[in-house]
């Protein structure tokens, strides 16, 4: 899976949770939960979905590395490549 495909999956899963927010209008370096107006349950749903789509662990200890859209993209790129 390449970078473009990985980001497409991320966009799709975020859209499922926050269909009213247009990803092109957000600040990709700001807090993901703030930008998409999602709570901790939504975030857990997002991580659950991404973990299943990419077949990676996404441990809770790594949450600080998933706090922005760009950080999440980088994290997925780093971990999803091996699959």
């Amino acid at each position, binding site marked *: 899976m390449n970078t473009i495909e990985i980001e497409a999956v991320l966009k799709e899963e975020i*859209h*499922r949770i926050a*269909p009213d927010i*247009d990803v092109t209008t957000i600040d990709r370096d700001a807090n993901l939960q703030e930008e998409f107006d999602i709570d901790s349950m939504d975030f*857990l749903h997002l991580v*659950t979905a991404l973990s299943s789509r990419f077949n990676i662990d996404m441990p809770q200890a790594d949450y600080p590395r998933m706090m922005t859209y760009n950080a999440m993209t980088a994290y997925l790129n780093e971990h999803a490549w091996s699959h």
Partner: protein
Amino acid sequence: MPSLGPDMEAGTLVEWLIKPGDDVHRGDIIAVVETHKGAIEIEVFEDGVLETYLAEIGKTIPVGTPMAVIRGAGQDVPSRDQQLLAAADATTQKKEVAPAEPVHKTAPDTKPDQTVSGSSLPSGKPGMRVRITPAARRRAKESGLDLMSFENPGFGPEGVITLADVEARIDAKPGAPGAAANVAGPMEKSGMRKAIAAAMSRSKREIPHYYLGHTIDLSKAAAFVTQTNANRPPAERLLLGALYLKAVARALGKYPEFNGHFTGDIFHPNAAAHIGMAIRIRGGGLVAPAIHNTESLDLDSVMSAIRDLVSRVRAGRFRSSELSDPTITISSLGDRGVDTLYGVIYPPQVALIGIGTPSTRPWVQDGVLVPRQIANISLAADHRVSDGHQGALFLRAISNFLQAPETL
């Protein structure tokens, strides 16, 4: 048509899930009704056989109106009179009940006055809805399709928009999910707002509230969640919310005067803790459906129940009992809120627990100043049923249970 809360006056039947002649059992989901709060799955209250439909798909039915005749187990086949009555009732209505399955492009004989779409009704009338099957609504929501953009009736029976209609519209409109995303259009919002206004006005009119607040240390609970989740896949992880529900359920065991309904000037305590969870709806409003029997579920089961409930609320579909059963409500501001929530009780309940956003604060413990994870919890309670003394003990009990998260 069951009442699914003090704010509900009517519901629109969108789907029958059983046919005349089918066996039904208490708790079975037999129909789907559209309300201000979304699509609600209606559960049956008794065992028996569905004899006749009395309500027609697409019709708005006032609360208390019979929707179907159910012959109880062991009861005789209804008398000829009853059958005639049902038949007479059916003929007074314009159309026969039609199945809600997608039907492909039948003759477009649908009368415009039978559809509820943007073009065929006076604009701005509150409570007006696009008629759409639940599956179609879900799909439209997922894809960010604006339901109000359907100017013509769908191809389903009586112009109901079906899944096929929505798919066709999505195909015709590639790559535009972000733009028309807000499915909860202005009409839907005002319906939800009206419902909340009715319930909260009644609450403030009838319930003599008193309020108590307490500052609690959540460090142990938060550490427990972090530790539990460390080796768990995301699908099995806990959130603090599950611990709040369990702690409240345990505390209710000691203080039952906060768990139940106040109806007909009498408080009816409930043995089981059906804890309503306030869940925000994107686009405006909130609902507080119940996690049933929270006292008898373990922490992981409570968490699964919360996940399931939140997913279904987000998808706009939940069960009638989840709306009518809550015996107390918890409203938690989550991690992006403020320190304190002052609740308004949802009638006929008698208490609401508010949980503020936790934050790291200085705390004195054993004479030493230490940083701890602190949150304000509040109680809004009905003075007709309890007093501040019990309220204070109840809040302290919740706090105490949260100090021993491993025992929840």
